[in-house]
């Protein structure tokens, strides 16, 4: 009896060990926060990484587990992660855990992007992998309500609000959708679009009168915004289901709508405010943790990600654009063509104003975003007094920037010492 039990226990342990050792031999692990939707994960595996010799185990996860796993491997001093993929902001604060990638040939990458990858150190902590931005999308049915004389790619926020108003009145309900849900990227709209368009600044003029005017305008727009917006995260869903006709979102989060019904939607540049047409470029990078099991294999994989054909495959898989100069083939998906045109219109506009992702905030990036989210919730959702809210949130913002000792980044003027909040 007990012999039997011992035997079966032994068999169970042997089975566990087999499973375990089977895992150790595997392909290099690409641990990523990007291409998280399952279709994109699938495309990353089948179309992008299948060309890498020996294969790659691509695993995408949420930021929490991603970070915890990385920290655990750093803490234990040995790890299985070969290459990390994440947004610029995900890497800040991890400088000590990332190996120097300076010996990888990254000359094809634009130097402004490469510079971001140093994370303020002397080493190349990550190498840019792909980039994206946020654009506007509209159902073609919405176009007939455009105000007279307004041009789609050169709208101002005033014209945009008039448009939404006319449409809401003509159709009997608000038709603008805004990704204000828990997974929505609402804070990027305030940081990179609304506030800089009115103030020419993301941080310094946070509580200026111009900023108050911007929030006043957004409050006006909110009347013509779908009341279900606080549940929206990926605007492509509501666009396809025609719950809303016009939306602002990340290019990758609009792509399905463009690809499913390319003839029904248009993409256009974000509106401009008195200070300019602000927009926010997004950069994702690849890095190698210091605990990588095989440093050479990891670096080979990073170099592979920069090859032009990999970059084009990545664009198809994730709707993030290449960071190196490549000639795009003609058969790209509709989303690439449509959003590509809108991005070109935004960047080429005479009043274009790039508002960069926060630089130098380290692990305070989340708190920085929270200031903008709180401001939105207090002013728009709770209807509180704009100057009072801006004043209080401005204090919180100043405290975070000071704690990080982060100098100003574009569009704010460069500063000595922490970026001031006037």
């Amino acid at each position, binding site marked *: 009896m007990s012999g039997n039990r011992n035997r079966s226990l032994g068999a169970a342990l042997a089975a*566990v060990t087999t*499973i*375990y050792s*089977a*895992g150790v031999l*595997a392909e290099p*692990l690409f641990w990523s926060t990007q291409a*998280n*939707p*399952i*279709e994109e*994960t*699938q495309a990353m*595996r*089948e179309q992008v990484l299948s060309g890498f010799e020996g294969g790659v*185990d691509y*695993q*995408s*996860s*949420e930021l*929490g*587990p991603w970070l*915890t*796993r990385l*920290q*655990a*491997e750093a*803490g*234990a001093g*040995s*790890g*299985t992660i070969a290459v990390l993929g994440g947004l610029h902001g995900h890497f800040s604060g991890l400088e000590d855990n990332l190996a120097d990638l300076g010996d990888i040939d990254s000359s094809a990458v634009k130097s402004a992007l490469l510079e971001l990858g140093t994370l303020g150190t002397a080493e190349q902590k990550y190498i840019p992998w792909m980039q994206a931005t946020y654009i506007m999308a509209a159902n073609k049915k919405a176009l007939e309500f455009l105000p007279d004389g307004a041009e789609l790619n050169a709208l101002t926020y005033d014209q945009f609000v008039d448009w939404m108003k006319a449409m809401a009145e003509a159709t009997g309900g608000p038709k603008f959708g805004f990704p204000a849900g828990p*997974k929505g990227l609402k804070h990027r709209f305030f940081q990179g679009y609304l506030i800089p368009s009115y103030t020419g600044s993301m941080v310094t003029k946070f509580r200026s009168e111009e900023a108050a005017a911007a929030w006043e305008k957004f409050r006006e727009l909110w009347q013509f915004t779908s009341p279900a917006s606080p549940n929206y*995260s*990926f605007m*492509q*869903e509501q666009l*396809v*289901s*025609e719950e809303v006709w016009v939306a602002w979102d990340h290019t990758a989060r609009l792509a*399905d709508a463009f690809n499913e019904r390319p003839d029904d939607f248009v993409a256009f540049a974000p509106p401009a405010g008195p200070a300019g047409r602000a927009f926010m470029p997004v950069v994702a990078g690849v890095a190698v943790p210091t605990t990588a099991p095989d440093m050479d294999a990891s670096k080979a994989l990073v170099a592979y990600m920069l090859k032009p054909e990999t970059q084009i495959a990545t664009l198809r898989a994730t709707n993030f654009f290449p960071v190196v100069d490549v000639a795009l083939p003609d058969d790209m998906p509709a989303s690439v063509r449509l959003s590509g045109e809108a991005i070109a219109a935004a960047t080429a506009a005479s009043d274009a104003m790039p508002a960069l992702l926060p630089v130098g905030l380290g692990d305070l990036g989340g708190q920085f975003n929270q200031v903008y989210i709180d401001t939105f919730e207090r002013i728009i959702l709770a209807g509180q007094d704009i100057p009072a809210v801006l004043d209080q949130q401005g204090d919180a913002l100043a405290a975070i920037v000071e704690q990080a000792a982060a100098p100003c980044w574009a569009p704010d003027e460069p500063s000595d010492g922490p970026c001031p909040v006037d």
Partner: protein
Amino acid sequence: MTTATDTVSVTRDEVRSASKWLFVAGVVMLCIWVLLPIYFLMINALSSPEEVTSFPKRMFPSFDLASVTFFFKFQGVLRALWNSVQVASLTMILAIGLGAPAGYALSRFDFRGKEAFRFLVIMTRAFPLPLLALPLAIMFIRTGLDDTILGLALVHATLALPFAVLITFSLFSGIPVELEEAAWTLGCTRIQAFYKVILPLALPGIAASAVFAFVISWNEVFAAAVLTIQNRTLTAFLLQSLDVSPLPLKFAGGAMLVLPALIFIFAVRKYLFAMWGIANR
């Protein structure tokens, strides 16, 4: 006087039929509460992506298997499903194997530190997993438990243990100690008395807490996402990418996550019904 009695009796009848209706309505409501979401989940999982996003919604599935097939082709899903089953089963065995004796000891014996022990058992649930995951992962990597079925099952068993201990504790407390004593007087040893008298009475309840342990393990995401890499469980594999995926895939993935748990509960329903006093057939 007579009229008054009549009124009362009529009212009593009315009350009786009204309470019957209320009961039936309540049962129907509860069934809808549970079944309707599952029904919609299944319809949408079995409809084509266009039908899922269109409006008005369909009431009957069109049996378009595009979304579901996508999942079965999705690299590693079947393996993740198998991992989930293994981890959940191992969790169940560990939680009951450790929890039931602890519950028995708590209900039958007086020992020093009993209260403290009960308190400590509950305390294990006081710390959120995201907080525990980092030190656990470091320890697991160092000991080689990292990325194994056993390691993850140990963590899940820790989560399930408080419930297993407390459920079995109240279970054993509900079985009179006199039954056990009677068995002793009739020649049973302590262990025999437990196996022959107590265990049959407690089995349905133990099964219920086993189901509970299974479900806790099945649903747990964070530890699974951090502690497994090659041997991911289905929830770690799917759940965290599901909420950022297109609607049709959300439904198909949801159905995939729900179905195995439903099948399992169906398999053990006999024991659950027995615990609720419905005849054990």
